[in-house]
């Protein structure tokens, strides 16, 4: 018996299972035990028992449900033991013990979806939603998340503790929202995923331009939600992330400097991501329920089809931004549209539009608005205007590679 597994020892198999299944088991344990911390404790006890018992008896037929069942029994045991000190727990232990086996196995797939909706509940702050999702759904450690967001691990740990306390005390339910609430609630989930992706793709501050681990995690989350809830906008967001991710290696130089879309070596774009993204867009568009994520993905797809910036179908891109602006009315969409207009109709027309947007005031603190203005002035030979706008952008930028890029451009003005 033992010899069969010598090449692939039990502890290694348990490690693999932990990586692939622990979050799934954890999600089910939360449903059965009604509490994050109790489920976490049960999960670790179940894996500890697994290592001991499986090295002796071999792997069970269905390791996942074995882990759920052992974790649940351990938790009930623990509660019973504490019952001696706390009478209110006795009722709880009995309640868990009465759970039918059928209930344990039901909806195991939905447990992961429930967990995502609980972690992304709008009653939690966006920072807490992101931290909890990465910790509980993705299984990242507190240190990993803190490093990715450049904050102290103690700050992040406290954020997670507070969020869990709110889930418990305000009784944020562990359930997939009702049909009536689903669109709004799904929107929050997608926002959290895109926030994680963007922090990994274009870090808002710090030394490096991209943090691959966060983007990878966001795409993984996108795939998970897609598998559980294949809504048009879920496809749209996943497509958008894949299409942006396809350019990752092309948008940073070997020295870590930013390379603009127009200067990228397009042969380095990841064609697998691009075709997967495009296929998702087609599925989303055919559902006719698509929204802004799908439209942004379509814009990224138009770029992906062009051999160069000059060969890009800018008329189509402007038209897509028009539709997006109808949907969102966001000044950032307006800014992106103006940049596309500059490519279609010339720098002067684009500059007039950017000046009109800046005059409205919403984007006066946004470094990319000033950087875009500076670039158009530079192209038009208005050196003094370009210099002033680069300086304004530099005063606002928080990320090192973008700062170096802007300084280089400013320097080149002479």
């Amino acid at each position, binding site marked *: 018996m033992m010899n069969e597994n010598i090449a692939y020892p039990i502890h290694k198999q348990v490690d693999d299972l932990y990586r692939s299944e622990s979050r799934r088991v954890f999600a089910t344990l939360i449903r059965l035990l009604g509490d994050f911390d109790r489920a976490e404790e049960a999960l670790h006890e179940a894996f500890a028992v697994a290592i001991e018992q499986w090295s002796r008896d071999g792997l069970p037929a269905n390791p996942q449900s074995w882990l759920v069942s052992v974790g649940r029994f351990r938790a009930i045991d623990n509660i019973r033991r504490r019952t001696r000190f706390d009478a209110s727990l006795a009722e709880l232990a009995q309640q868990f013990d009465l759970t039918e086996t059928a209930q344990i196995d039901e909806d195991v797939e939905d447990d992961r979806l429930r967990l995502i909706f609980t972690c992304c509940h709008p009653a939690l702050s966006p920072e807490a939603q992101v931290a909890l999702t990465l910790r509980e759904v993705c299984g990242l450690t507190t240190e990993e998340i803190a490093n990715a967001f450049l904050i102290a691990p103690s700050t992040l740990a406290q954020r997670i503790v507070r969020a869990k306390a709110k889930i418990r005390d305000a*009784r*944020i*339910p562990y359930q997939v*929202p009702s049909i009536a609430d689903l669109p709004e609630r799904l929107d929050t989930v997608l926002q959290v995923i895109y926030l994680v992706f963007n922090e990994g793709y274009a870090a808002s501050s710090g030394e490096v331009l991209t943090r691959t681990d966060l983007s990878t995690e966001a795409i993984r989350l996108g795939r998970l939600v897609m598998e559980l809830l294949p809504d048009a906008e879920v496809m749209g967001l996943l497509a958008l992330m894949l299409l942006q991710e396809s350019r990752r290696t092309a948008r940073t130089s070997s020295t870590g400097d930013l390379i603009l879309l127009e200067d990228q070596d397009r042969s380095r774009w990841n064609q697998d991501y691009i075709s997967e993204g495009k296929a998702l867009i087609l599925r989303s568009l055919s559902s006719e329920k698509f929204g802004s994520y799908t439209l942004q993905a379509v814009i990224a797809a138009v770029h992906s089809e062009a051999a160069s910036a000059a060969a890009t179908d800018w008329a189509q891109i402007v038209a897509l931004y028009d539709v997006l602006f109808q949907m969102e009315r966001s000044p950032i969409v307006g800014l992106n549209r103006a940049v596309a207009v500059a490519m279609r109709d010339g720098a002067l027309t684009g500059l007039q539009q950017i000046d009109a947007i800046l005059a409205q005031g919403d984007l006066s603190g946004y470094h990319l608005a000033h950087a875009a203005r500076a670039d158009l002035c530079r192209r038009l030979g208005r050196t003094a205007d370009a210099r002033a706008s680069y300086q304004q952008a530099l005063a606002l930028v928080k990320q090192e590679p973008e700062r170096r890029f802007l300084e280089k451009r400013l320097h080149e003005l002479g």
Partner: protein
Amino acid sequence: MKYMLLIYGDENAWTQSEREDCYEESSQLVQQLRASGQYLSSSPLHSVETATSVRVRDGKKLVTDGPFAETREQLGGYYLIDAENLDEAIAIAERIPAARKGTVEIRPIVKLLSLPSDQ
């Protein structure tokens, strides 16, 4: 699980007829909540101008005019409800007519074993 729904808003944002409509609509909501077993109690409050604050410091009572904090939004009423979870409480909060003008703050009630349990 019991939740206190605290209704905040700018008192001066209401005309007399709007206020009466709100009371009327709220009474209907109370009837519905009572029928579904979710109602415990509720009431509008008189204007913050009628508020009196009491503090006891070093055993000495201090009574002053007005609310404790000066803010643009004042506490104007409350609902005490019984709901399964926060999502249910949110679903009730959004049916409160004053939510359309002001803000409803949902606070879970601390269960104290030393308190009489008739509520």
